[in-house]
């Protein structure tokens, strides 16, 4: 159990925190959650026998959008579950948080696991699923174990199992841990992995709502999405929506990392200006100049500082600015960051994490990485930049899942926004940034082999 570290300030996640309100690092247990008003939403549903359709309608009204990266409206997703399907249906929580820069689900599970459990039970109630699985990322084993503890608490208290709180609704929840493959965060790869198979995405259609876990109708939502559900049910969709902006309801936890003074998770209302978020994180390290930000996790396009400083943190504003909110991982880069080096690291990640199933991603990610590596190590050619963009174009939109796009978008955006820096590497075989006069590239650096 993860209780080793000392308590922190109950407003550490920001003044507007809703999911993480009053969280001090120690109060994750059932009694703490209940004292914060936890499981009241579930009790209300069961006591008042609120019809499932009404809950879905409320979630639709809240404009809650999927917090895992795609931003798909949660209420709409729930409504895809076939009502009259006679067999087993499943509710799956995607806690396979593996996107570089993203670490919010880890904190939700660590500090407020019952919000996820309650959200899943409500989701099961709303969609008619009686079994749920939480797929926890393989590299946070202690948190997986802690979550098992939380499930046990909920079960002992009658929130899980047959006839919950004496009602005729039954829901069983199981925790499952992966083994650390990024691809298993893709929802259909997650299902394959959950079924005990090789974690690789399925071709869609059919979508999980009609053919999901073990071929049964399944809804898959992100951890943070589930964590927001009890609040919506308790306070109403309208109020949730009002926390954010139209079509961008509620608060969102942003994982701010990189060159900031206080990296960490900050829960703010959607639509909060980026500048405010940056300020919460203590501003750019040592007062340096902001250079670029990846606003939604490593698979989203990078945006230059000037664009970012004018942008608000919600789905639609960031899309308008040319990127995506994604999972809410804000990677901040100051003017000491070499964009070639940064892209090399990102390209390596996707090369390493491609599942190998479909051609463009399996072959293309390695090609991208090797070319960027060549530029970084002073062996680039001017024509490489157009080739990189063209290769990325040949990957994007041609793959089974979004990992191909995730590999392509950073390459295209880094080159389009910071082309000069790449050209400098190619022409001078050294870097333009870091120290005065730039540091020499490392011609001897060896290619990293994918594990």
């Amino acid at each position, binding site marked *: 159990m993860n209780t080793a570290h000392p308590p922190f300030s109950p407003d550490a996640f920001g003044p507007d925190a809703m999911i993480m309100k009053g969280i001090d690092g120690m109060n994750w247990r059932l009694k703490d959650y209940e004292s914060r008003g936890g499981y009241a939403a579930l009790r209300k549903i069961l006591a008042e026998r609120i019809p499932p359709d009404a809950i879905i309608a409320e979630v639709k009204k809240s404009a809650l959008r999927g917090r895992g990266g795609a931003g798909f409206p949660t209420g709409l997703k729930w409504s895809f579950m076939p009502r009259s399907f006679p067999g087993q249906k499943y509710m799956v929580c995607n806690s396979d948080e593996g996107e570089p820069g993203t670490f919010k689900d880890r904190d939700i599970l660590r500090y407020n696991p019952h919000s996820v459990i309650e959200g899943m039970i409500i989701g099961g109630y709303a969609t008619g699923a009686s079994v749920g699985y939480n797929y926890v990322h393989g590299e946070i084993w202690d948190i997986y174990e802690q979550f098992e503890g939380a499930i046990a608490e909920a079960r002992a208290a009658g929130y899980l199992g047959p006839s919950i709180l004496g009602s005729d609704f039954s829901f069983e929840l199981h925790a499952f841990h992966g083994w650390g493959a990024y691809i298993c965060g893709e929802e259909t790869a997650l299902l394959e992995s959950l079924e005990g198979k090789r974690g690789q995405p399925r071709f869609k259609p059919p979508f999980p709502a009609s053919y999901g876990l073990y071929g049964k109708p399944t809804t898959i939502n992100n951890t943070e999405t589930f964590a927001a559900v009890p609040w919506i049910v308790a306070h109403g969709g309208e109020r949730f929506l009002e926390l954010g902006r139209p079509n961008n309801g509620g608060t969102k936890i942003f994982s701010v990392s990189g060159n900031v003074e206080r990296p960490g998770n900050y829960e703010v209302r959607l639509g909060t200006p980026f500048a405010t978020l940056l300020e919460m994180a203590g501003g750019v390290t040592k007062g340096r100049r902001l250079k670029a930000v990846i606003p939604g996790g490593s698979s989203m396009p990078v945006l230059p500082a000037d664009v970012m400083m004018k942008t608000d943190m919600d789905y639609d504003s960031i899309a308008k600015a040319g990127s995506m909110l994604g999972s809410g991982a804000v990677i901040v880069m100051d003017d000491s960051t070499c964009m070639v080096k940064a892209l090399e690291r990102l390209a390596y990640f996707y*090369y390493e994490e*491609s599942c*190998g199933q*479909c*051609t463009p991603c399996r072959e293309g*990610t390695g090609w991208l990485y090797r070319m960027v590596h060549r530029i970084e190590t002073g062996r680039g050619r001017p024509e490489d930049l157009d080739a990189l963009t063209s290769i990325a174009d040949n990957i994007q*939109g041609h793959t089974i899942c979004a990992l191909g796009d995730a590999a392509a978008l950073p390459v295209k955006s880094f080159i389009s926004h910071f082309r000069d820096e790449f050209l400098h590497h190619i022409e001078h075989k050294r870097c333009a940034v870091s120290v005065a006069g730039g540091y020499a590239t490392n011609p001897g650096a060896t290619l990293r082999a994918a594990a």
Partner: protein
Amino acid sequence: MMADKKLNIEIDGRPVEVPHGATVMEAANQLGVYVPHFCYHRKLSIAANCRMCLVQVEKAPKPLPACATPVTDGMKVWTESDYARRAQRGVMEFLLINHPLDCPICDQGGECQLQDLAVGYGGSASRYEEAKRVVPHKPLGPLVAAEEMTRCIHCTRCVRFGQEIAGIMELGMTGRGEHAEIISFVGRSVDSELSGNMIDICPVGALTSKPFRYTARTWELARRKSVSPHCGLGSNLVVQTQHERVMRVLPLENEALNECWLSDKDRFSYEGLNSEERLTRPMLKQGGEWREVDWHVALEYAAHALREIKSADGAGAIGALGSPHATLEELYLLQKIARGLGSDNVDFRLRQSDFAGDGHLSGAPWLGMKVADIGTLDRVLVVGSFLRKDHPLIAHRIRQAAKRGQEVNFLHVAGDDSLIRTANSLIVAPSALPTALAQITRAAAEAKGAKVPSELAAVQASEGVSAIARSLSSGQSVGILLGNSAQHHPRAALLHALAQELAGVLGARFGFLGEAANSVGGYLAGCVPGANGLDAGAMLAAPRKAYLLLGVEPELDCYDPRRAVSAMNEADLVVALTAYRGAVEDYADVLLPIAPYTETSGTFVNTEGRLQGFNGAVRPLGEARPGWKVLRVLGNLLGIDGFEYDKSEMVRDEACPATEIAARLDNRIKGVSLTLPGEAPTLQRVADVPIYFADPIVRRARSLQQTRDARAPQAYMNNAALAGLGLSPGQRVRVRQGAGEAEVELACDDRLADGCVRLAAAHASTSGLGGMFDALTLEPA
């Protein structure tokens, strides 16, 4: 309702109507529009992983894979637009960057999908200048070579083939991204009875044929259609030849029989055609020494000797035994010679032991339905069949049907994994097989409210039996199939009659899974004894003075090899028409080299009664001659009338006009007593015929002989039976059947019934033993 609805789609400006659920690829195929692809295979599930079939679809934000995109009404698709082509070329570039492009030294060269499509969709030069991936080769056993896995494009056809068609996942993909590799299970070879098909479906040179590789280029080979001489299915073949030598065998697609597949036996047994043991010159044994002689010397000697025996001992002293793998023409002429000499002793049912049905049959026993009909049944009972190994592609059909909901029931003497989703399986001792079938019949009759014959009135059904009966009696379209073991069984006629009763009760169809290529053809050729003749069993039990053998190796092909060999040794004259030397040299007096199926024209009538003629693919080896020609000359030399044939077709038309076949197929049996057998022996033998020992050709196919299925037989018993005898697995034992004995190693198989010792037939190590299902004794060696 939905399924009936037709959908309209326009592909490249051409409209086409397709059924609901069709994919864009299927619609394109219907129009004859070719969409490039690698992973798509119409017999396999959709993987959509190669991305080569990306096409432009109206209103879609990105190109979509034709193979996996369902047609919607009013859909517009472009397969050759710039947009589609750009996507396809992009994929081709990715496929080629890590491909070694070693076509000049690749065995797939000239028949490679990647090579073909690269011409249309690849660039003439590569933009890729980084290091290429290298993938270690994999040892997969004697049949499939995976020496150049760098060529693999990860289409997973081989993986899906194993999972879906063969029923056993012999290959799988491990590793991620660029490190994804196709491998077998650690240390396991890839040699299930259908593995060779992976070579065909591999679109590149990653999986190649180990026996064939580096022996010829595909464009150097001549192609001849042919028909498999092995199991009763009659798979259609393309025999590929060079310099009058069969270089390899590939499937010829025939949806009604083998579809696009071949069993490994059909595919790789051609190595036996080129065996060192081929008999290439006529030979005479004189003074115990074999001498090569001219054809006329050998034939005149044979004719003279046969005439002498006839005049000394009467025509009844002559017996003729033909192989069920021989052609219709050969079997017909064999019986014509025997009868021309005045002997009715002629048979081709060498592994049959019970001939009580003779005289009670209404026609030639056959499958009782079309092969393709097997897949449409909703209930099946397979009685006494090592189905997977005896009939690999019929097993595949049942496997697929089981996935669609067919309930498959087995009643057998061994519990080998059929790799078929099985509803019920009942394993009994051979002696209990008729009783179990009678019980099923009784239980089914009760369920159906049907009457049963008085012999079955007292039969009690056990739980295992009831489950099978319940399954069968709940079906709408039921089939009962009697396998090889049921046909070899000492009470085969009773099993036949019981199956008929059961079929009657259920309103089911019933039939026989033909063991050999001409198991039906032999009957049509009249190669069975008449009322005054001796059948194969009787001819060996009461030894004849002279035997005329056609493609037979008595020590391996007969129900009771010890008795067969001793009859041969006792005979004054054995004339063997054979393609091979071997043990026949010990007891024969004249060896006449005849051509195997690739070197002669001929006909097989398969288990569903389909007459399939074929021509020779190469010239006969050495001085070997087509069997029908040898028999024709022998007939002439014997002065028998009616041997004036110019062509094998004349023999065929005389033996069995194609139009008469349907009328001559009839499984009905009348007047066989249904009285069930009594006491069983303490220990009884269960003998399978291992897939690669079943006939003379495959026995000499070198690569197949190195597979797991060709290991020397062991004697299997269940644990309790072993313990009861104080024996343990691994121990060597002496097995005795009458005067016959063999020394083998013991092994445990808990799926066997009590009192059973499973010990394969058709192998040299067990050819000293007696009957396949007879009593035996065991003692430590």
